[in-house]
């Protein structure tokens, strides 16, 4: 009788495990198969993604973007918890493309249209030019600045520096290029908005990168990360 009972319990446990596995596989398939717009409206998929993503994020992404997704300016790793995105508008599929192929990762499909040239280092701007354009950026980001240099900086921004070409005439950045806004809205700076940091950015240029995770992470993990990050930015 006892043996029969044990056998029954074992069968039930095995059945439960098989059901769980099949259900999870079904959720994985649904998550990966879902087209834009289908995920956010499916709470079960969102919940599943939220359960898959955090350990993946901690293991692979947190080293640059920080455990709380706040980014790290020393590396130029952007904050992933706000609603500002360098590439695209922050849809799940756009985030997924960045996770899949990276930024300047060497993968042919990575975001790699341009990077920040070293305008001083290459001789395009003089030290004084760079100082002036930095004062202009400080002014439009509502920081203390040298008012006498702002107009000169504005002229360089729109002229010899050709800054407007990538950052836009309004300095709000262009998501096709992945160029950040220079207005420092909400303290959102990629490398920092202090005078010295801005000077270094303009003089030396910046070449931030993000690895391509295709082939390292599974498609389920990548999609889950995209949903997870999308959700975080929406909460913000």
């Amino acid at each position, binding site marked *: 009788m006892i*043996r*029969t009972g044990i*056998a029954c319990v074992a069968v039930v446990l095995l059945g439960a495990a098989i059901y769980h596995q099949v259900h999870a596989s079904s959720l*994985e*398939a*649904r*998550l*990966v*198969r879902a*087209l*834009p*717009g289908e995920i956010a409206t499916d709470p079960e998929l969102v919940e599943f993604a939220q359960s898959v993503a955090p350990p993946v994020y901690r293991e692979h992404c947190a080293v640059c973007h920080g455990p709380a997704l706040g980014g790290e300016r020393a590396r130029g790793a952007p904050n992933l918890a706000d609603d500002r995105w360098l590439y695209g508008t922050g*849809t799940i*599929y*756009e985030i*997924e*493309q960045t996770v*899949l192929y990276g930024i*300047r*990762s*060497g*993968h*042919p*499909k990575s975001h790699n249209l341009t*990077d920040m040239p*070293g305008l001083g*280092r*290459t*001789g395009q701007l003089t030290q004084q030019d760079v100082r002036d354009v930095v004062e202009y950026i400080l002014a439009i980001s509502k920081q203390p600045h040298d008012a006498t240099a702002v107009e000169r900086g504005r002229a360089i921004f729109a002229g010899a520096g050709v800054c407007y070409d990538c950052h836009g005439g309004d300095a709000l950045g262009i998501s096709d290029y992945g160029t950040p806004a220079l207005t420092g809205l909400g303290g959102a700076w990629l490398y920092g908005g202090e005078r010295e940091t801005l000077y270094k950015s303009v003089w*030396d*240029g*910046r*070449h*931030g*990168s993000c690895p391509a995770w295709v082939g390292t992470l599974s*498609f389920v993990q990548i*999609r889950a990360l995209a949903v997870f990050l999308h959700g975080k930015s929406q909460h913000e």
Partner: protein
Amino acid sequence: MNEPQFNRERASPRVPSNDFFDFTRTDSRRSFALLALGASLGLAIAGYGLFTSKGTSTNRLPPEDIALVNQKPIYRSDFVIQTQTLYSVPFEQTTAQQRRKVLEDMINEELMVQRGIEVDLPGYDPDVRTALVAGVELQMYADVLARSPTDAELEAYYQKHRDKYSSVGVLRLRDLMLNFMPGETDAQRSERAVRLVTELRQGARLDDAFMEKNALRDSGALLVSGKTDLGDIFDFAAQEKLQPQVYAAARRLPAGQVSDPVTAGDGLHIVVMNARKVPEALSFSAARERVWNDMKTEAQERIRNATYGYLRSKADIVAADIH
């Protein structure tokens, strides 16, 4: 007393039971059922592994793919982004016809790529080979190209290789040669060269009449479009073009000076240095861009060599003796 009874019990044949779940008794139906269950389970596991492992030919479309073309996946994510990019609207706003067109285009492209590999385009088409090499190199160098060295690293490299960082010298010179004159011996030609050098140093005008009268000609080493280059020439270009002995003489010659006769493999030369700008050592700030480029080039070289080494270690290469 009890021993015989115990032996009898053990020796007695087991009685088949009608109870399927009575595990204390033998039951042939249960045996067959468990055997069948075990076999089915084994087959199921084997089948699952066979049809879900990577590279398995299957008609099942993995969820992350929008299509499989000869088992080569086209990712759903790429399809969505390509559709949005092509029609510049969110994917939800694209029509079924537009989506079908994008998918057909992606499948066609994949088919063409596979056809290219099938007919071994990389094996003989120079453009494809160049593109392949460039693609592989880009992947190899990604880390180097993305890296931005610190000022301290740049300056350390500059200090270590200071001799590399100088401005490029510029020369403006004439490389004259003595024509062979009928009946003139080598000794007489040398004497003529010494005489001409003296005349030039004393201010003789180096014009066509002087050249013709003294059987002189430009060596032809500094020709540009068929004419002698009388303008500025970079130091490294002069080194490339002039005979080694002639360049060695020119390198030491100040502006406005005339060299001693120089014997080179092709005859006697006289160098007239009209003007020159000597190379000057560059400061760190002036050399910074070059330092950065040199660091990148060096790093790329290291990576390239390491990659070649790795690939060669894996490759089976048979090459003929070229000596």
